[in-house]
């Protein structure tokens, strides 16, 4: 099988220093028949998986992958690195790395190469009624407030889909809402400014909801933002039992 190589340093940053280059062998899951799967790229330190992809793209411009922000904010660069879902822009490639296997996220249909169709994720997200609805018992939550603390625990999700890819229930049970959507539901259910608590608890408690979680904690282990969706689900489970 052909291996494309890139040893010359020709990215858009010209560094005067002579940082040593690490040569990494990439195996990339490609979807086009006959597309090259093996790349050998030379990377200078520091490097992240996204740099390896960009270097691979110089060798084969048709390589398909996504990214936008480079700083763990947009959530579009998620791929599986050596089988584990993670953000390409945040996964460092250490100097002693010599091989990497890059694959698209699991649990989604592949559009091309590393690009996947995330619509199942968003359909689930939509089902939990993810938008804030005014009308709750309180107007504002001051610092140190208990309700605020509950909500904040679940904020800052970037909807990258890593948890979806890591969830063993989602891949076998198409109706399951999945960790991210339920985590979003939690941030609203816990929010005393919100007026639709009952409805969301109903959605979370019914078929496809919190009862399907097996506490595998794959989502929590995978979350690149350090959130704990599994804990959110367990909280929702308690609340929906009481409700």
């Amino acid at each position: 099988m052909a291996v494309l190589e890139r040893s010359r340093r020709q990215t858009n940053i010209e560094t005067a220093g002579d940082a040593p280059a690490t040569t990494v062998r990439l195996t990339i899951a490609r979807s086009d028949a006959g597309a090259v799967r093996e790349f050998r790229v030379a990377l200078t330190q520091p490097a992240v998986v996204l740099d390896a992809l960009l270097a691979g793209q110089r060798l084969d411009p048709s390589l398909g992958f996504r990214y936008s922000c480079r700083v763990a904010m947009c959530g579009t660069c998620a791929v599986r690195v050596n089988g584990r879902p993670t953000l390409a822009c945040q996964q460092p490639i250490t100097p002693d790395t010599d091989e990497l296997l890059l694959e698209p996220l699991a649990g989604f249909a592949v559009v091309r190469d590393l690009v996947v169709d995330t619509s199942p994720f968003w359909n689930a997200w939509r089902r939990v009624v993810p938008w804030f609805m005014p009308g709750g018992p309180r107007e504002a939550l001051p610092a140190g407030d208990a309700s605020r603390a509950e909500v904040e625990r679940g904020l800052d999700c970037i909807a990258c889909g890593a948890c979806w890819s890591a969830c063993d229930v989602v891949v076998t049970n198409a109706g399951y809402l999945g960790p991210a959507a339920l985590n979003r539901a939690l941030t609203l259910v816990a929010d005393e400014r919100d007026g639709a608590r009952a409805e969301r608890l109903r959605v979370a408690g019914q078929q496809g909801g919190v009862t399907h979680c097996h506490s595998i904690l794959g989502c929590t282990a995978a979350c690149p933002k350090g959130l704990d969706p599994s804990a959110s689900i367990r909280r929702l489970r308690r609340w929906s039992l009481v409700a």
Partner: protein
Amino acid sequence: MPEWPPEWLETDIAIVGSGGAGLMCALHAATADPELKITIVSKGAVGRSGCTRMVQGGFNAALGAEDSLEAHFRDTIEGGQYLNDQELAWTLVCDAPGVIDELETRFGCLFDRTEGGAIDLKPFGGQSFDRTVHRADQTGLEIMGRLRDQVLRIGAHELEDWRALDLLFDVHGELSGLTVLDTQSGHAAVLLARAVVIATGGSATMYRIAAPAREKTGDGMAMCYRAGLPFRDMEMLQFHPTGLVAGDSALTGSVLEEGLRGAGAHLYNRFGERYMERADPIRLERSTRDVVARASYTEIVEGRGTPSGGVLLDISHLGADEIRRRFSGMAARTLLVGADLTTGPVEVSPTAHFHMGGVVIDQDCVTEIDGLLVAGEDAGGTHGANRLGGNGVAESTVYGARAGDTAAALVRDRALYLPDDRLVADSLDQAYAPLRRSTGLTPFELTDRLKHVMWTHCGVVRSRGGLLQAREELSDLASQLTRIAVPGPKEANPAWQQSLDLASQITVARLIVESALEREESRGAHFRSDHPERDDDRWLRAVIAERGPDGNPSIGTRDVEFTRLAPGGRAVACETA
């Protein structure tokens, strides 16, 4: 390869871009008239592309007890060195508190509050009062997350991962919509619309070291330019002083937040000299963005920078625990690139950040073309020569909301016009051309060259000689565009998309270079080494650029109107608009 005829779609309002401006626009239009058909065209993921999402610092609004609209306005104008369109700036400060309220009470944003329950306001550079609303250091994430979910509520039609190509007009020149391209499937379509709102977030990406998200390649500006709209202040491009230097890594250019300097970080060159003592002996590192960026840049180009082209930012004297507590995100970011903010200096460089210049609009986002509105970073004038931290996301949400209101009213009596077939054919031919050519250049080398040219000749410090050279290089690059060939299929092919990005970037780069040549003084973000002084006698004028009859930029100037505040601080009128 373009399928012919392309798919035809129809809508009342077509919104191009799904950052703060685009989504606020959709929500406001839907509130004004829930029956409206709204289509959001977004090159990246809806609500997850662009820079509003990346805002860390926060959102300026005069909410403090002692603060006032006048004070916010004065800070904005002084920050902008009197180049601002004062009506736009005044509208910004007047609307900002209302938008914060709307974001909180209608859309659910959870901004930080004090124990007493008031919105927590943090200090930011160049402001006379603490007025920056935030949610920890993830403000943009909170705002965009909530707006995105509200957009699910209104059920707007989303063309996610579709890029806008060109504006379309009928044979009499009436705006009829735009051509759009699905970057995932590679299919094109004609989107007919009664009103089009451009909110693609401008472009500061054509620099070697740059901070913005990758979609922001000036597509909206280039579309408006080709349609003949005038631009102002295009030379005003802000460099953030502390962009991360991470060698060849794509992380280079990402921003280390301003708060570090505010908290007492020092800047050193490679000889350990604290060069801000020379550049601004009074404010030192806490000086404004333009001054610090220029000082660092000078150190670097004069050979006093580090071997990899940076200077050193050191805040370790605060102590590791304190740094980890206050700047955990920043500490993590430096760890990722093998440095450590908590224990020693980190390499930084100025990084291209924000474009103050843009399309000329009025307070309702109206342009010279009937049916075409522009909002957010694509528009110019609000910030003058320099933007205050925290006024950017305020601008995108305030003006996005206004664009939505205007559009909803506008489409009530604006018809749909059928586009001129020739325009459709030209637009699609151009878009598919790189894919059809079998041999030629890849877009990567040309993009590298563009970024290099802009960085060296039209960056933090400019001169006539350099700018003339940049002009040459850019026209050469523009001529190479027709030689780009991209292998691979039309589905999800980033190299093809990059070749389309490049065309827009070059168009906008030319506007920047031509405007920078025109302004023979130094003001705000624009510094000319051959005209290093601010010249209020000659240059309280906006540089206006538009497409000339030969297709090249034609440059003129226009007096700035001091409708509310004249230089020297004399208030002309400050009544509520």
